[in-house]
């Protein structure tokens, strides 16, 4: 059992550390709470209404995509440092890597993840919908009521039909 002694020591130390942190902060931190301090904004502005709880999910989406693509580029850095030495072999390796990253980018564009603005039509149609239909043919307007408070439903339907036209002509 002697070989696990350091593990036990570490566990004790970790527990001690957590315990001391709590006790320390309870003992040392001064607590002089005032009404101003506990207000949501300390700068003095009294909130007139509750902040909107729901941010459009696109904010999260763009942020998440940014993180991934931003960090992928880190692999180019070592190559950039030594690109002269690794020559053609390195270049091809980096090109393959870039192609893989680029494919995910194509995927995003194709799925409409980077389209900003009013709700686009979903690329995934149910199979009952004929892909060759045009703007003049039926467009399901069910469910649009209430979704577009600022824009009239007609505009949304029109933009959706534009999108449809593009999809049809691209295909």
């Amino acid at each position, binding site marked *: 059992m002697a*070989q696990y002694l350091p593990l036990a020591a570490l566990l004790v130390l970790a527990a001690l550390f957590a315990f001391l942190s709590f006790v320390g902060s309870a003992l040392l931190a001064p607590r002089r709470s005032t009404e101003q301090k506990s207000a949501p904004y300390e700068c003095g502005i009294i909130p007139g209404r509750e902040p909107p709880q729901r941010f459009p999910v696109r904010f999260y989406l763009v942020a998440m995509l940014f993180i991934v693509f931003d960090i992928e580029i880190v692999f180019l850095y070592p190559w950039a440092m*030594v690109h002269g030495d690794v020559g053609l072999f390195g270049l091809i390796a980096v090109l393959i890597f870039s192609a893989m990253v680029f494919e995910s980018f194509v995927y995003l564009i194709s799925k409409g993840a980077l389209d900003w603005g009013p709700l686009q039509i979903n690329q*995934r149609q149910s199979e009952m919908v004929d892909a060759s239909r045009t703007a003049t043919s039926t467009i399901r307007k069910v469910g649009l009521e209430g979704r577009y408070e600022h824009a009239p439903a007609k505009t949304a339907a029109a933009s959706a039909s534009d999108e449809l036209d593009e999809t049809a002509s691209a295909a």
Partner: protein
Amino acid sequence: MSGTFVTLVAAEIERPSIDWHAIAPELILLGGGALVTVIDLIWLERVRKLIPTLTSLVFLVALIPVITLWADGSGLPRGLWIIDENVPATGVWEGAFVVDNYSLVLKGLFLLSAYVIVLLSTNYMSEGDYYDSEYYQLIAASVLGMLVMSSSRDLISIFVALELVSIPAYLMAAWRKRDLKSNEAGLKYMLMGVFASAILLYGMSLLYGIAGSTLLSDIAAAIDIGESRPVITLGIVFTIIGFGFKVSAVPFHTWAPDTYEGAPTPLTAFLAVASKAAGFVALINVVIVALPTQANVVEPFIWVLAAITMTVGNLIALRQTNLVRMLAYSGVAQAGYMLAPLAVYDGISDRATSAVVTYLVIYAAMNLGAFAVVIIAARKTRSAELSSYGGMFNYAPGLTLAMTIFLFSLAGIPPVGGWWAKFEVFRVLTEGNRTSGIALAVIAAVNSVIAAFYYLNIAKQMWFLPSPDGDNSRIAIPPALLAAVGLTVAATIVSGVLPGVVSDMTDFVNVAAGQ
């Protein structure tokens, strides 16, 4: 720091010649997965029905180089690079990427399991109105991670492979995104998985600090036999805890039942079989290759893990009423049996590896089969509760028979597969006549008896009890699911009746040094 970087890198760089044959399975899977994605993007709806077929084709094509590499056994082991074509292979390969018999068996196992999983998923996904083509692409990504894992002999590539296995699985666990249970399954799995990765990495960084290299063989060379420093113990224990989460060993199993129940059932099969096997492969690689000299630290720790894993898993499985949860806990218990050979690996590392891999292969066949039956039954009953299996013999005798075979196999009753897996484990445990091994064998034997209770209870339910709502209409089995059940039944029976087929493949020599 960047100055060091340049001088170290620029020392000598020459274009290595790549052994394309050796990495062909991985390349085919990578290229095939990317191709399926592009095909899906271009043709959208028109190919939607074809995506599962295409993905399973990719798996089968990737299996071809695995078979040719196996047939070309004289060239093994091979690495990623061809150092010098004129120098004959020495029979030992110490590198970050090793293709030997051991890794080839595992690659075959992963690809075939993935093929069966796609068969299981096809109807489930297309009938559920989920994003289905992405699901198959994620499975391909996860399987790619498993293939890389079985050849990885380096801390960094093991870590990257493990994450490549896990991250798509987090997403797929939350696939039914309008269902709170599935959300919860994904979130729990992800939080625990990420926590485990962090612990694992910390252990790895300590091992790297001790050895000065991330290569497993270098780590083995850097640590002397019996050398005991606190930091070595910490590094080893942290690393094993990290893998313990992945293979759902008690007490790191808490995510498993919730995730298994909430995730889509085909994915549950994937997690319970393939993902768990990948975790075991990583554990074997690290323990057998990097830590042959540290048995005094590794063995007792894994012994305790194995003992409580099988006991706790079985005891909780006894009182489950939901079949998926029961299979989840039985999977936890089975992980205990699989850990057991690693608790006595000192001096017999090849035999221990063979036992674990044999168990993994047979476990994959019988567990995938059991999940296939659960999926088929749920198509009619819309439930995985144990009581809903009552009377199944009356309306689905073939299915009942198949499930009975899987259950007997899981319980370890001859002549179907499971008994041979357990037999191998017991043989390794008792081989050295060591007290610890025999004690663990006794615990495993007691557990097998406990486990037989709940496995046979399911069989009793299906054969003898009436169906709960008196609905005895037949179940329509789609061809894909029928094929999955057929394949797994065949594999389970063959591995039990002719155990030589499996044991010939898993008879490894000198896993630690490549071959």
